[in-house]
């Protein structure tokens, strides 16, 4: 029997209860464009009360729901459940409070990541986690997927910056976890909630820690004739005792794409570029840059560009941040993987990726957060060719297994979502998986919150041939 949606409809005015195909189309997919599913209805709450009422209705009527912000998930985390409800949170976008004295921001889930930093800027503060999609992705999604970015080595991921969360759980229970202090007593439920991929419930008011904006940045772009040399340079920087804010590498194919897209002026003929960024008080950076210069001088680079001002720094970052959508110029479609390997095995991992790419005849560009071993191989394919997507997926699977085999992780920052759910049991043994499933049931005994994500399951979304995400085509977002 199909549940009537009447009760749910009564919570919302007609304009915010969407059932027509045209208006729903925008919600059928997210940043993982290879998958699509059609929800039964999309509701657009404007208040916490409406979110709570919608979740309670779903729980009571056993109708699955997916919470969604801007839909930038790269793992299919906000992909609708066929015949379920999408709870679109973009209008829950109030910054409730910025407290410069306590250095916290209290925000609703639909607030865009960058807007937190914008609002905090007048106090000399900022919100540190910076996923590449930060100009559009929302804090609710960042919390659900424990998003990362280029600065995780020094500052940690989203969960390190979330100190409290009021949430409606999948059962309809409303709880307050953590609070306004960065410290707490008792089990860290806030930490558990971060990265739960929407399987526990929906954050309604999220308390974020803000940091003082660094006084000075020192950003260096270094060109190498081989990927191995760039990888070795990362080890040399780490071994020197420096703790850079960011350490990023791009390979030749990624450089070519970025160059074509944004003319970022990276050294031509580089097989790899390394971006190192130091940040802190001016005097300290002055000191550390000498240390960095001395280290880099031993790494056999053939080109070096030091950002002379903020505009120059942003232009160095533009190449890096645009790399993913830029790869769209080289190939009509691509999959981006997000595995992690121990840093010392980066070089080995890259050699294996190249080998697997050659064997399968599929081009792979590499962009990665080298400081924390987080790879982002971009697997290129043409979705219009029969079997191309399947072949690309087969290669992606090999790369994930490689990360597991090397003692790493299947995801550093994109989450498991739909995309990697079959691999979670390869990373965790059966008893650990069973424990995680018990925890999921504790929060959601009816399995209504974002089913089909993280855990292998039967709810299969539709695979389609793809293209870039519409926002990505427009150059608004980029994948990281």
């Amino acid at each position, binding site marked *: 029997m199909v549940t009537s949606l009447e009760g749910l409809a009564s919570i919302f005015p007609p304009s915010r209860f969407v059932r027509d195909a045209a208006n729903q189309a925008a919600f059928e997919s997210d940043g993982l464009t290879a998958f699509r599913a059609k929800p039964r209805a999309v509701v657009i709450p404007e208040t916490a009360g409406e979110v709570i009422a919608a979740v309670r209705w779903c729980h009571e009527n056993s109708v699955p729901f997916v919470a969604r912000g801007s839909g930038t998930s790269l793992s299919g985390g906000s992909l609708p459940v066929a015949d379920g409800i999408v709870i679109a949170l973009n209008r829950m976008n109030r910054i409730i409070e910025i407290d410069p004295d306590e250095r916290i921001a209290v925000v609703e889930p639909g607030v865009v990541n960058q807007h937190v930093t914008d609002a905090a800027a007048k106090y000399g503060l900022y919100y540190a986690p910076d996923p590449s999609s930060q100009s559009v992705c929302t804090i609710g999604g960042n919390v659900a997927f424990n998003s990362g970015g280029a600065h995780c080595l020094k500052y940690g991921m989203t969960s390190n910056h979330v100190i409290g969360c009021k949430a409606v759980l999948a059962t309809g*229970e409303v709880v307050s976890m953590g609070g306004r202090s960065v410290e707490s007593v008792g089990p860290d*439920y806030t930490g558990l909630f971060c990265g739960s991929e929407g399987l526990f419930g929906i954050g309604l008011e999220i308390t974020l820690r803000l940091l003082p904006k660094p006084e000075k940045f020192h950003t260096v772009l270094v060109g190498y004739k081989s990927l191995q040399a760039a990888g070795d340079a990362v080890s040399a920087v780490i071994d020197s005792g420096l703790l850079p804010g960011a350490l990023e590498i791009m390979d030749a194919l990624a450089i070519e794409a970025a160059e074509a897209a944004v003319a970022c002026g990276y050294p031509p003929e580089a097989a790899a570029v390394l971006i190192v960024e130091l940040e802190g008080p001016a005097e300290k950076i002055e000191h550390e840059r000498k240390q960095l210069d001395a280290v880099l001088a031993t790494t056999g680079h053939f080109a070096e560009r030091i950002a002379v001002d903020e505009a120059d720094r942003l232009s160095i970052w533009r190449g890096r941040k645009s790399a993913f959508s830029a790869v769209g110029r080289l190939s009509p479609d691509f999959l981006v993987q997000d595995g992690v390997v121990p*840093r010392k095995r980066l070089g080995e991992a890259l050699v294996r990726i190249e080998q697997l790419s050659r064997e399968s005849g599929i081009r792979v560009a590499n962009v990665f957060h080298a400081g924390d071993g987080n790879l982002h191989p971009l697997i290129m394919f043409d979705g219009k060719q029969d079997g191309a997507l399947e072949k690309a997926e087969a290669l992606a699977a090999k790369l994930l297994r490689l990360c597991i085999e090397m003692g790493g992780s299947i995801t550093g920052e994109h989450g498991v979502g739909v995309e990697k759910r079959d691999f979670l049991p390869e990373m965790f043994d059966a008893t650990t998986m069973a424990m995680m499933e018990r925890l999921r049931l504790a929060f959601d005994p009816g399995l209504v919150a974002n089913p089909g994500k993280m855990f292998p399951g039967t709810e299969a979304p539709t695979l389609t041939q793809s293209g870039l995400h519409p926002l990505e085509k427009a150059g608004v977002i980029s994948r990281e």
Partner: protein
Amino acid sequence: MQAETSILPVGNRTKQPLADDQQATLVSLRELKGIIEYEPSEFTFTAYAGTTISEVNQVLHQRQQYLPFDPMLVDAGATVGGSVAAGLSGSGRFRYGGIRDFVLGVKFLSGTGEVINSGGKVVKNAAGFDIPKLLTGSMGRLGVMVEMTFKVFPMPGCNQTLAVACDSLETAMQRMSLAASSSWELDAIDYRPASKTIFLRLAGPEQVNQILFQKISKTWGSDVTELSDGEAIWRAVNELAWTQPSRSLAVKVPVHRSLMGEIVDFASQRNGVDLHFSTAGAVAWLLCESQDDVDHLDQVLLGKQAAGLVVRGAPERPHIGSWPRTEISLAVKQAMDPVSKFPRLFHT
């Protein structure tokens, strides 16, 4: 319902109130010790739960690395397992985050004796639920942690400690706020109301610390002095030993600014209580002489719906103030410990 044969895992029992339960059999992990793996280039190490922090520190320091959150009760003999279970971080929590942010993976036994491998061994990992964070602060009531992996950082060159005199709480709060929002990149900001002093720690190359010291002095003039015994000050805070040993009951209270005044008033009214704020005012540490002091603090916290944890001494109960008993906390406990092998999460 607690199982008849319930057990409570303990280490060296430096947080004795948490390592005690009348109905439970204590299972000591103090002999399950040793560093299993240490990869300086990965910024990670893995150790058995009973390994002392002081052993870890010794090994890390040889490679110029450290745990930046200032682990607590190190001299007293704290273990890595006990530190995670108690969820304690010292003054260094201010800069890079607390113990929750540095524990990457935990192998533990569930209530039914299964071995669970949660989290991972690499510095960045978003796969599966973050159970290591749930175990932080779980006080041995959700599982028996046997092995854990931590993230570490390179040690800064030198530490320098400054004292900033503040005649009132208001001035101190205003100055802490300014210091915490400044670009000085301070390593720790603590405040002791009774001595009317804020303590600042600079961590970095010596000559850089000196320049920053000058900058800070320019801001607050002669109120700023450099302390030669800086290390001893931080050590005393992290060992909960900055006052006379008779104040043996130590209570941790996470606070926010609107609660600070209340706590300061409470401490100033009680002869047997010493107060120290760490992490730029986010945590109040209270050292109390008697159970009566703790009972009064309990009342203050209840009135403010705040929670406190007695981590040292022999209190009547370690959980004071307001600990909300939610449906979900019971359900999580049930999921982690379906046969109630471990004591309840808290007694109030």
